């Protein structure tokens, strides 16, 4: 089945945070109240009960110009090759047939491996249920022919949901338009990053201005752990058991051959 993607166009976002509220509403998540931090951003980061946030990022690069205020809707990127899926010891993370990265919460044990393997550190621990949660791309809505709650509620059409190829075309047109209309660094994010993200961003500036990693990579310890330590190293344990069993047999056979050992062991 063709990939279905969420597209977020920064240039159309007014940071009303309706998406944040709609997400809470649909997923029936309780409010998480954090103390005021001196800006409009409600939460420092996603958390166990907050799948999506709108970041308010301030830049003062050009002293002559005003403060540059960059908004960014932040949530699970639904990677094509999710690191969280590789590390999950319960194999409870999977990709569905249209590209959403999903979690089977019945099997989640709250170990948080996925949380730290994620290049964006998105999945978060929910203490009250001892599980790690994240955005589901509202797969249950999409499968009923609806759009995700955040997209449904977006008043400016900054969020759009649909066929990935169509949205990619649209994104490229938007970037072209933005580049000639005062945003020369406008770019698409999620086309090639990490082999592709099922979440597309139209950015008005380079990704680092939006607190996004310019060239995101799965942290090096994770593939070393998953591709070398996990599959191969463990064989040392059966080897030790086998060696001991061999010795157990041969010592006793040889003892019979050479005559019993002296009482204190081998003399």
């Amino acid at each position, binding site marked *: 089945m063709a990939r279905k993607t969420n597209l977020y166009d920064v240039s159309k976002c007014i940071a009303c945070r309706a998406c944040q509220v709609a997400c809470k509403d649909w997923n029936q998540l309780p409010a998480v109240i954090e103390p005021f931090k001196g800006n409009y951003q409600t939460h420092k980061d996603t958390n166990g009960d907050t799948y999506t946030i709108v970041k308010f990022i301030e830049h003062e690069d050009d002293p002559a110009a005003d403060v540059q205020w960059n908004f960014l809707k932040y949530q699970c990127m639904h990677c094509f090759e999710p690191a969280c899926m590789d590390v999950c010891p319960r194999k409870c993370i999977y990709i569905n047939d249209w590209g959403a990265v999903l979690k089977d919460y019945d099997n989640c044990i709250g170990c948080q491996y996925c949380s730290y393997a994620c290049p964006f550190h998105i999945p978060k621990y929910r203490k009250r249920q001892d599980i790690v949660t994240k955005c589901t791309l509202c797969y249950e809505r999409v499968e009923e022919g609806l759009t995700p709650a955040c997209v449904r509620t977006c008043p400016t059409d900054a969020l759009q949901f649909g066929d990935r190829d169509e949205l990619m075309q649209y994104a490229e047109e938007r970037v072209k338009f933005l580049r000639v209309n005062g945003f020369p660094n406008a770019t698409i994010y999620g086309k090639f990053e990490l082999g592709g993200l099922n979440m597309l961003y139209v950015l008005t500036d380079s990704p680092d201005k939006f607190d996004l990693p310019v060239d995101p990579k799965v942290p090096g310890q994770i593939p070393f752990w998953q591709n070398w330590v996990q599959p191969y190293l463990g064989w040392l344990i059966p080897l030790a058991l086998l060696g001991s069993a061999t010795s157990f047999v*041969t010592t006793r056979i040889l003892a019979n051959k050479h005559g019993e050992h002296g009482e204190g062991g081998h003399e």
Partner: protein
Amino acid sequence: MQWVPEYRDDINRVERFNAVARITHWGHTVTFILCLFTGLVLFCDGMDWLATIFGGYAGAGLVHRIAAVLLTLFIAFFVLFDFKGIISWVKDLLRFGMNDIIFVMKFPLDFLGLPVKMPPQTRFNGGEKGNSMLTPTCVIFLVLSGYIMWFPAIFPAGLVRVAYPTHDIAMVFATFMVCMHGYLGSFHPGSGESFWGMWKGTVREDWAKHHHPIWYEEAYGEKADAEKE
């Protein structure tokens, strides 16, 4: 066929491990094995049956954490009540010399039961020295990385990511050593007497003379007796 050599109290015996060392050792045996089996549930695939023994994955996680805390407490117990013993243990490990190298090189033959003549050993032979160095090092790494994984929020993310493979690597090496140690310290005919050294605290005098002549001479030989007097 015998499993462990018979305990003989009709033969003169000498002390090998004091009570604190023995309590620490067996405390670590129980807690390590509990941690191992509850941990393998995640390390190996398809271990649902093992998790079931501990009441599912959540239960296994709880047992793992309780056993891990007890394991840490046994380390503290050893440090608090027999610090001198740790120092003399470490001192003996630092005496790693030619006799130990020859011992380790010849050991595979002895392991299989072929008759070999070993050079005289100190309190711990070459193999025991290796085990004494590797296993506690792995356990320290296991404890440190374990607490980091348990409370990832209070540690830097980079450290948490390093802790995962560290925990696995240390677990595999420690378990490898524990398997070998468990066998050599009990069912291996030559070294089996040392089982009683750790269980009852004493070993046969003739065994000590034969297997650890340097230690025997220093601790119980004529010179040591003369010093005591």
